[in-house]
């Protein structure tokens, strides 16, 4: 399982209601249903992913997050998740607002563009970084709103969003212990963290 998901699972309590925005093939929801007996709902736009979720017996709604969550009432979920999707929405600030309206707590994970490798790549080559995790070019990427740890936290201050937990990781996949933050991640997350995980509330 992806490292950001392993980390965020600890923040989700058993028997709670979880909304996963951009739930993909439903792997995380399926896990949470089996391990923590949550009542989960996924939102997805990719048709194959939706079929996959349906095949797993998960609840999934075909819906475009960019159009908002107006069909969900305030505080109707305990936790709203947005993993590796913040950078792909049209208005991350709007999506965050909606998440905080619908959920009591939210968990957001995203690639950190303040990471030294991204900085190094840009400085040395003068081009937008392309990596194994992010194999797109600037013109065809679905990731239209890259941000850094610092950018995100500035937005939280601006919007009065309380950060309950923050952690950064070296990689999303790899050996098991990689998901645990190192001492230098904690001291300078925006430089040494490739992936950021935020647990926030209002």
């Amino acid at each position, binding site marked *: 399982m992806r490292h950001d998901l392993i980390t965020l699972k600890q923040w989700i309590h058993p028997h709670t*209601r979880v909304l996963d925005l951009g739930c993909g093939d439903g792997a995380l929801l399926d896990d949470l249903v089996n391990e923590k007996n949550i*009542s989960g*709902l996924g939102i997805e736009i990719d*048709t194959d992913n*939706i*079929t*996959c*979720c*349906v*095949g*797993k*017996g*998960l*609840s*999934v*709604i*075909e*819906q475009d997050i960019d159009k908002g969550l107006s*069909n*969900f*009432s305030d505080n*109707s979920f305990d936790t709203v998740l947005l993993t590796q999707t913040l950078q792909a929405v049209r208005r991350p600030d709007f999506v965050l607002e909606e998440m905080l309206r619908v959920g009591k707590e939210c968990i957001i994970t995203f690639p950190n563009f303040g990471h030294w490798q991204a900085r190094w790549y840009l400085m040395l080559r003068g081009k937008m970084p392309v990596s194994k995790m992010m194999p797109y070019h600037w013109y065809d990427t679905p990731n239209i709103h890259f941000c850094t740890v610092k950018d995100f936290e500035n937005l939280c201050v601006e919007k009065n969003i309380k950060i309950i937990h923050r952690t950064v990781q070296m990689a999303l996949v790899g050996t098991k212990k990689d998901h645990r933050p190192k001492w230098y991640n904690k001291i300078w997350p925006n430089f040494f963290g490739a992936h950021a995980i935020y647990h926030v509330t209002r």
Partner: protein
Amino acid sequence: MKFSANSVGLVTAKTVHFDAPFRVSCGRDLPNLDIVYETYGSLNSDHSNAVLICHALSGDHHAAGYYKEDDKKPGWWDNYIGPGKAIDTNLFFVVSLNNIGGCSGSTGPTSINPATGEPWGPDFPTLRVRDWVESQRLLADHLVIQQWAAVVGGSLGGMQAMRWSLEYPDRIRHCVVIASALKLTAQNIAFNNTSRTAISSDPDFHGGRYYQHDVIPKRGLAIARMIGHITYLSDGVMGEKFGRELRSGSFEQGTESALEFQVESYLHHQGDIFSENFDANTYMLMTKALDLFDLAREYNDDPVNAFRNAKCKFLVMSFSSDWRFSPQRSEEIVQALIGAQQAVSYVEIDAPLGHDSFLLPVERYNQVFTAYMKQVSQQLASDELTLTGDNHAS
């Protein structure tokens, strides 16, 4: 003719007779009931794999397979019922009936009213969707099905499936609602009314007592069907299918020959076939039931409140080009289910064929439907395992 491997093959209809009076929601009693139905696949030992098919306006019990080797067409939902199909008859015991008020053998306006010795005709009690659910419950009892693995329906059939989830929450595990609505819009009622007016203004209608005059209001019924047919298709698909092609005559100036577009000929043909095979009083009654349906009426007009009573899981599907039961109507169902904290999955299928899409082969529709039903069956199997385990433990 040999049937393909994924066909249920030859089928026969059965009739069950219920002798006790059946109280209709309008307050009147039907002295007894006949229900015609078909079944496909086999019922498992604990009777947990039964799936009920609820038909729409002009449907009947013949949902899959053939009556004779040389039948031109299979049942109306053969695309989705059969071995290896979405509603897999290798896994499920499928029950499909002709709703009461219908004209394919179940008690309806063409049946004899024992009080008069004449056909019921227009005096047949006004039916609501809940009356169909109640008569389907009788059939379930007769077949010793305590709980449906799923109740499935498109359009008016979806309304029955939803009503099941509220009336008998313990007797339905999954509810599949396709191209349906919580209630009809004014526009939708208007179409139904226009169709009914076409029928009632046919001189052969005789206020619904045409059986006694030995005629049928063919022209009215045909027009009703034509109106319906137009609304079941999309502008796009009609354009693609017929365009402005002529069937006869010519656009040439200097000629005055009668001119007929392909689409005109098609509609007339559809109307003619229908008017020879469908009963006008049934059409009046079924469209009226559609108009009357409002899932949330008795729940303070609050569909969230209504769905709080349900205990099953829901799959809701709509079609992008359907304007008679548009995706927006399905989204209202989904929103209410979410509000009631029910388990629901929703897909809007991108299909050009309009409301009729739910009957036709559409790839993504088939994929989602199949994935859902497969998982329904897997759940049954795992529940059975747990049950057996419990028995061993005790």
